[in-house]
């Protein structure tokens, strides 16, 4: 059975000091149901995605409390928590539920509250995406790896530090046009020298901000989709792969998990990405965005910096860099942005029939791809 997205809604990505996760989710769910024509009582499954609820909010299985507080009765509720790919996993689960006929209306909800504690507390939480017994215990930070990878990329391909920041500049330009984006201002390469250093040569300008947010997607089967008020988008397929840890890789500049997942997805579905395909990739750091579009075979290796200018539908919401990275919700924001693009409600017109969301935990440690297609 085919799976369709018939509703989606997001909150503005921000530091929402005045709202708890339930309020954010209520807003995202309200928008999602409103534009789908369905009601809370129609929902069979509530699939919740969060990366750090347990650490930050002291809340195991928030799905139970979301159901209790937001009036979902007789729903099957559960929580998926799989690091930075949580949202992609939640979509895969929902896809399997619909496709198997186990459910016909699944609400996927993602959220994160990264601003509940000051950065030095949250940084420790975020570092849990790395392997604690090897990396975390030594205080190795996710940004340290991004810096090492950036070093290798610049060295191997003779790419300059200044050209890498082009990625972030583009993301901020896209964010300015995206109402739900967090960083709605432009930046320039001139600011690079004054930018706060994180892990040299990486600066704040290269990195995602600290973000709160919630996003929801309503997935249904074909018969429900046909009755929906809005034009559905098909969630065609999900694919993923795991990479070796950084220190075991022969080439730091090749995201081989993303590449392997793409090869399988591409051949199984007979699709090929080009610079004109809408893609929404994980630019946790700008260098990761560049390596991802190379691993997805959109650009030749070492050429991504040039490629960025030729990709009108690259991270139209501003990417993790400028839309922000409310971790457990990020893949749902990505799909929401692609849905807007494909249904003609984005700030830019798109004629393609497919689009792709990419999520990964750390530097390609675990990479996931979600393939979408317009209603045909």
């Amino acid at each position, binding site marked *: 059975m085919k799976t369709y997205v018939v509703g989606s809604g997001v909150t503005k990505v921000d530091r929402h000091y005045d709202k708890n996760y339930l309020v954010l989710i209520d807003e995202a769910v309200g928008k999602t149901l409103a534009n789908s024509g369905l009601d809370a009582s129609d929902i069979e499954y509530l699939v919740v995605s969060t990366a750090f609820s347990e650490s930050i909010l002291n809340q195991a299985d928030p799905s139970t409390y979301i159901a209790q507080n937001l009036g979902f009765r007789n729903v099957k509720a559960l929580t998926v928590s799989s690091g930075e790919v949580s949202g992609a996993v939640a979509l895969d689960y929902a896809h399997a539920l619909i496709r198997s006929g186990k459910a016909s209306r699944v609400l996927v909800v993602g959220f994160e509250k990264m601003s509940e504690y000051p950065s030095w507390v949250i940084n*420790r939480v975020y570092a849990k995406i790395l392997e604690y017994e090897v*990396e975390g215990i*030594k205080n190795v930070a996710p940004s340290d790896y991004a810096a090492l990878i950036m070093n290798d990329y610049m060295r191997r391909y003779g790419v300059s530090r200044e050209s890498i920041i082009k990625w972030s500049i583009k993301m901020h330009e896209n964010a300015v046009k995206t109402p739900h984006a967090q960083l709605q201002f432009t930046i320039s390469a001139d600011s690079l020298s004054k930018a706060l250093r*994180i*892990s040299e040569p990486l600066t704040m300008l290269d990195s995602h901000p600290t973000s709160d947010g919630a996003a929801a997607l309503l997935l249904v089967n074909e018969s429900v989709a046909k009755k929906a008020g809005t034009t559905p988008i098909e969630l065609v397929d999900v694919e993923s792969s795991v990479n070796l840890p950084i220190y075991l890789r022969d080439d730091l500049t090749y995201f081989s998990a993303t590449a392997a997942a793409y090869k399988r997805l591409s051949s199984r579905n007979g699709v090929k990405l080009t610079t004109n395909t809408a893609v929404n990739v994980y630019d946790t750091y700008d260098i990761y965005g560049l390596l991802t579009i190379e691993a997805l075979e959109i650009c030749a290796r070492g050429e991504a910096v040039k490629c960025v200018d030729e990709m009108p539908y690259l991270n139209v919401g501003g990417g993790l860099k400028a839309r922000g990275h409310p971790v457990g919700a990020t893949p749902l924001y990505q799909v929401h942005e692609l849905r807007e693009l494909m249904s003609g409600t984005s700030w830019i017109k798109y004629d393609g029939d497919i689009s792709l969301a990419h999520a990964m935990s750390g530097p390609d440690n675990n990479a996931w791809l979600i393939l979408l297609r317009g209603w045909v």
Partner: protein
Amino acid sequence: MKHSISIFWRLKDNHYKIYVTKCGDCGRVAPLKRLKCPYCGSRNVEHIESRGFGELINYTVSYYRTEGSEQYLPRVVGLVKLDEGPVIIGEITDVDLNELSIGTRVEAVLRKYSSEDPNGLIYYGLKFIPVIKK
């Protein structure tokens, strides 16, 4: 930061010493004592203790702040290619940033990883320092 005593105790071979896992099937080497070869999945592996010497092949000067880390910033985090072959991630310490470069010879030494706030346990483990020229 507070660590579990039992976790730290179990990890002593990987943080107080450096071991290398050598695969009897594919022949590749990987750092740390491992149950299996991470390249081919084979259980036919041998654990060899490293002498702790190697070459710095990539590094970053890190300002990533976590609770209790303020006084130790910036830190140098890098990849060290051990003389026995594998690459390991670690901190380079006791070093003048101006004298550090890719290719620097380093050796493992026991140093403080972190401590509990404010008067709690201190956790030790291996870091790297530049090899002192004789």
